[in-house]
C-alpha cells in the first residue's frame, strides 16, 4: 500500500476512541521476561498471580487439566505454578490480558479460534527460533503471539467491512488478507502495524506484524518476519488456522521465507521438516487446553 493510503488508514484508526489500548499487564511482563528463566523470582510471580482471582483460578484449573494427567489434585497457586512451569503461566497471563484488548461483544472472528491460532504461531515461532539458533527466542514468541493483532483493530474500526471480508474468506476458502484487500482495500497487516506503532512496540516486531503475509521479494525485514510467516502457514496447515479449510499446497523447502532463512541459518537445510510437522500436532493439544482454560469462565 502507498504511503498516502497508509497515512489515511492511520488517521482513521487512531482517531477513533475505541482504539485498543495496550494491556497494562503487558509492559511490566515484557520487561520481566527479558530476564533468563533462572532469575525469575517464583515467589514474586505467585504473589502477583494471587492478586488476580481469575488468573489464579485458571492456573489451578489448568494444572488439574487432563494435559497433566494423574497428578494429585492441585489446590495452591504455588503448586499450580510449579507444575505448569513458567512458560505456561506466562502463556496464560498473555492470553488473559490480550483477550481483554477488545470487548467481548466486538469479536468478529471467534475469539477461541483467534487465540488458538495466535498462541500456536507463538509456540511454533519460538520452536523455529530454537532450531535456527536465533538468539532471541522470546521475541520470536511474542512476534508470533502479536502477529495478527490487526484482526482486532479491524474488528473495532471497520466491523461491517471486516465481517464481510472474513465471511468472503470463509466462503471462498481463500486467505484472509486476500479477502480483506478485495473488500476493504487494506489488510490486518496494515492495521496491525498502525496499532503496533501506537503501542510503541519495537521496530522488528512491528515489521513482523506488517509483513507476515507479504514478506516481499527479496524478503523485507529480518529473520523474524520470515519465521512468523512460516509459523503462520504451518499453523494454518495443522489445524490451528482461522477455523476454515484453506485448500492449498505449500512446498516449504522452496518457499521464499524458507530459502531466506536457510541462507542466514544453514542448519535449517538439515531439518527433518516432516518430523517437525508431526511434532506440531503436540502443540495443538497444548494450545487447545490453554485456550479453553482462559475462555471457560
Amino acid at each position, binding site marked *: 500500500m502507498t504511503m498516502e493510503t497508509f497515512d489515511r488508514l492511520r488517521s482513521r484508526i487512531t482517531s477513533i476512541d475505541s482504539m485498543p489500548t495496550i494491556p497494562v499487564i503487558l509492559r511490566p511482563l515484557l520487561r520481566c521476561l527479558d530476564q533468563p528463566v533462572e532469575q525469575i523470582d517464583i515467589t514474586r510471580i505467585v504473589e502477583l498471580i494471587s492478586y488476580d482471582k481469575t488468573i489464579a483460578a485458571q492456573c489451578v484449573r489448568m494444572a488439574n487439566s487432563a494435559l497433566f494427567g494423574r497428578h494429585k489434585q492441585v489446590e495452591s497457586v504455588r503448586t499450580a505454578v510449579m507444575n505448569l512451569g513458567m512458560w505456561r503461566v506466562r502463556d496464560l497471563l498473555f492470553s488473559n490480558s490480550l483477550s481483554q484488548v477488545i470487548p467481548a461483544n466486538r469479536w468478529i472472528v471467534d475469539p477461541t479460534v483467534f487465540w488458538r491460532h495466535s498462541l500456536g504461531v507463538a509456540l511454533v515461532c519460538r520452536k523455529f527460533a530454537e532450531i535456527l539458533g536465533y538468539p532471541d527466542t522470546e521475541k520470536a514468541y511474542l512476534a508470533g503471539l502479536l502477529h495478527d493483532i490487526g484482526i482486532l483493530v479491524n474488528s473495532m474500526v471497520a466491523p461491517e467491512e471486516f465481517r464481510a471480508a472474513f465471511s468472503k474468506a470463509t466462503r471462498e476458502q481463500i486467505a484472509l488478507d486476500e479477502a480483506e484487500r478485495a473488500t476493504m482495500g487494506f489488510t490486518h497487516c496494515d492495521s496491525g502495524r498502525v496499532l503496533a506503532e501506537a503501542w510503541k512496540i519495537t521496530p522488528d516486531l512491528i515489521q513482523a506484524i506488517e509483513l507476515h503475509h507479504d514478506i516481499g521479494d527479496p524478503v523485507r525485514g529480518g529473520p523474524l518476519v520470515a519465521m512468523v510467516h512460516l509459523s503462520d502457514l504451518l499453523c494454518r496447515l495443522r489445524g490451528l488456522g482461522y477455523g476454515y479449510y484453506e485448500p492449498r499446497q505449500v512446498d516449504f523447502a522452496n518457499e521464499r521465507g524458507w530459502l531466506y532463512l536457510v541462507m542466514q541459518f544453514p542448519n535449517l537445510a*538439515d531439518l527433518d521438516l516432516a518430523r517437525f510437522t508431526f511434532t506440531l500436532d503436540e502443540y495443538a493439544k497444548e494450545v487447545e487446553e490453554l485456550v479453553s482454560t482462559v475462555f471457560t469462565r
Partner: protein
Amino acid sequence: MPIDSTVLANERVPVDALTDPVWTRIRDLIYQVSGIYQAENKFHLLVRRCNVRMKAVGSRTPREYLDFLTERPNRDAEMRNLLNEITIGETCLFRSMPQVEALRKVVIPSLAEVKRKLSYTKLRFWSAGCSTGEESYTLAMIMLEESQKTLKGWTFEIMATDLNERSIAKAQEGIYNDYAVRNVPPDFKKKYFTQAGSNFRVADCVRPLVTFSRLNMLDDSKMLFMRGIDVIFCCNVLIYFDGKSKTRTVNHFYNALMTNGYFFLGQSESLYGITEKFHLVHFPGATAYWKPNEPVLKAGSA
C-alpha cells in the same frame, strides 16, 4: 524452599506415567527404522502397543524392552513385531479425512488442470500394499463422486497391489464390517454400499474401477512395468523394509509417477533420509511427496 529448577527449565512436562524418557527413545528408534512418528500426545498408544510386546517377550520395564529392540540378537525380528503391533487394525475406509480432502480439493484439481491443457482426460492411481482394499475403494468412491461433479467425462483407473494373496482375495470380495466403514460419510455409505447381513458390500458401480493384483514391491522386474501413474498411495508398508529396499522401492515409485504426480505415505510416515528426489508438500492436515519437473536438489544442499 529451594526452587526445583527442573520444573522451571523443562518447558512442557507430559503425564507422569509417560514421562519415562525411554519412551522417547523407543519413539525415536521406531522413527529411525520405519519413518513412523508417534507424537507425544499419542504416547499412550505407543505405550499400549509396547506393553503388548513386552508381555509377549517377558520384559518388565520399558528400559529392558529397549534392550530387546537394540541389543538382543533377534532385535530386528522384535522391531518387526512391534511395527506389526503398531499398524494393526489401523486400516478402515476413509481412514484419513485430511488426506481425502487434500486429494479432492487440491491434488485432483491441480492434476486435472494440467491434463486438460493436454486434452488428456484420464487419471491413474496406484494403491501399493493395498492389503484388504479399504484405501483402494475409498479412492474409487471419491473419484466416482468427482466424475459426477468436476470431472465429467473423465476416466479413472485404480491399480491395487499387495504381496499377500489372502488379503487380495478379501479385497476382491469387498465386504466390510461396520467397524471398517465407521468413517464413511453417510451419503457415501448410502450410495456406494449395499447391506449384506450385518456387513456392508461395496456397490457394483465401484468395483470395476479397481483392479487388484498380487505384486511384490521388492521384485524389480515387475516394478519396472508400472508407469504413467498420477497418484501413488503406499501407506504403512515401507516400514517393514530395510533402508536399501526402501530407497529402491521409492525410486521405482518415482519412475512410475508422471511429472507433477503425488506420492502419499501414511498419516505420520516420512521419507526423510530415503530420497531427496521428491518435494515434501503440505496440505491442511496432510503431507505428500510431489514429483517436480526436474529433480531439484533440496534447498541449501549444495
